[in-house]
């Protein structure tokens, strides 16, 4: 016999809501500001700029390490009076051409890879072969094949974008849950429609991270290539701007050129990729 079997039953009424105190209350103004990622990042940027300024003032040598303020000044001067903006536009144009073409080829390759077993083997083999190959190492060959024009730059850019994007997209496709695939098939989707309507959105977190890596690789490759390659058809890009000013010992301008790359990186990350992320994978609950 259970010892507790004779315990009485009891039933309780809910407490009135005014007895609880706080059930739900808005958070403070300060907490809300600090919850904004942009604010936190701005604080980090300000701290970094401050550290730069303080360190450069202590070094006190404009030839090796110009201050933050003189770099900003050089940036402003270069943009308003100099040719920094035309150089930047040139670089951006080549960059977008290479990036776009690289993504298109990556889309083609990963679609083939998910549709056919042989396509899968092809992608795996090609990425294993070419992914470790630094794009810049192909530049001499590229110059022979495509001459001293944008063609050579676009070629090395495509090489640097294609493999990381294709690899990420493909692993994203393969990670799509079997249930979602079956749902797509259930709708009678096949071939391109199936890839576009089911696989691409379902693999979007991976695709997006591939696009981000591709973007960063493209910038690195482009600036490096321009540093080696110099000027083509009278106009050079940012890399050329950096090299040109270095030979003239305009070190503040060199820093301004580098800062431009950094600024563009920040703008694209926070203005483009973050917005895409918020409107897609975060809204869909596929990424925290």
């Amino acid at each position: 016999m259970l010892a507790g079997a004779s315990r009485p039953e009891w039933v309780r009424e809910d407490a009135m809501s005014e007895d609880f105190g706080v059930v739900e209350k808005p958070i403070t103004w300060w907490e809300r500001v600090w919850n904004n990622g942009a604010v936190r990042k701005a604080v980090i940027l300000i701290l970094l700029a401050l550290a730069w300024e303080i360190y450069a003032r202590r070094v006190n040598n404009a030839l090796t390490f110009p201050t933050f303020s003189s770099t900003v000044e050089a940036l402003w001067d270069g943009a308003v009076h100099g040719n920094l903006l035309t150089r930047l536009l040139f670089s951006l144009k080549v960059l977008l051409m290479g990036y776009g073409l690289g993504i298109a080829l990556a889309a083609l390759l990963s679609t083939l890879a998910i549709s056919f077993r042989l396509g899968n083997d092809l992608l795996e083999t090609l990425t294993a072969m070419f992914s470790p190959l630094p794009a810049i190492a192909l530049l001499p060959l590229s110059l022979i094949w495509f001459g001293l024009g944008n063609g050579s730059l676009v070629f090395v850019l495509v090489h640097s974008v294609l493999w990381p994007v294709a690899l990420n997209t493909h692993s994203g496709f393969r990670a799509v849950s079997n249930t979602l695939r079956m749902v797509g098939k259930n709708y009678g989707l096949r071939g391109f429609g199936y890839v576009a309507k089911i696989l691409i959105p379902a693999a979007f977190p991976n695709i997006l991270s591939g696009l981000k890596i591709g973007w960063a690789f493209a910038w690195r490759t482009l600036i490096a290539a321009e540093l080696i390659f110099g000027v083509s058809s009278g106009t050079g890009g940012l890399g050329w701007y950096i090299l040109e000013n270095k030979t003239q010992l305009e070190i503040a301008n060199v820093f301004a050129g580098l800062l431009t790359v950094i600024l563009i990186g920040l703008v694209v990350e926070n203005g483009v990729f973050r917005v895409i992320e918020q409107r897609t994978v975060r809204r869909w609950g596929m990424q925290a």
Partner: protein
Amino acid sequence: MNAAPPSPTAVTEPLLDVRGVTLQYKTKAHLVTATYRVSFTVYPGDRFVLLGPSGCGKSTLLKAVGGYLTPIEGEMRLKGRPILRPGSDRMMVFQEFDQLLPWKTVLENVLFALTSTGRLRGAAALDRARAYLDKVNLGKFLHSYPHTLSGGMKQRVAIARGMAMEPDILLMDEPFAALDALTRRKMQDELLRLWDETRFTVLFVTHGIDEAVKIGNRILLLSPHPGQVKAELNSVVDLTDSGAAAKLERRIHDMLFNDRVESPGNSEAISHA
């Protein structure tokens, strides 16, 4: 084998005719025979339940009806046409909660099914989607994304999506198995209510005897390794008669487990990996 007495609806044409179907699939190391010469017939308006312990191939059988697997022997016909590939005339409702497209809202999920199959478009599709989402009491969540819903709500969306397509047959693969017991009972009641309203045909897979008795009007019992038909039974007519239901459950239980006394406890414990 299948000595089923003529069904009371036998005068009408069978909707789904499965004859002598043997299914095999390959794992990394083995060739597995999931079902061996299974036959059954589903008539319009049936709530046909495939019931059996793990390993009886009931899910595999359902996937074959869905067109995801091709039998190595026998044939399956839907409205007289052989089943060759997946298609929207057989809508699946899966057990997994991730069967909704996470990049579409509740309404868009139902709409997408209607429009991408070309069944309906425009205002007609919108009206149909809304109507079925209202039926499953999700009228207030039309614009929510799936990840904000509870498991039961996700399954309701999946059911609404399947019903909105008004398929020849709705294929449900243990749709309530991943829900908690209270929600499961509620969903079972809801499914029966929906069936009362529209009288769709459903092929329902479960490993719960109580669920089979409650949901089905006709129950196909399968024995495992490989799956073979053990019996085809009529379920109780009056669900409020708990004595009859309990008796049937007892009978099914005995049929499924009596000859396997030597190896107790291996039936429900091994869930499909």
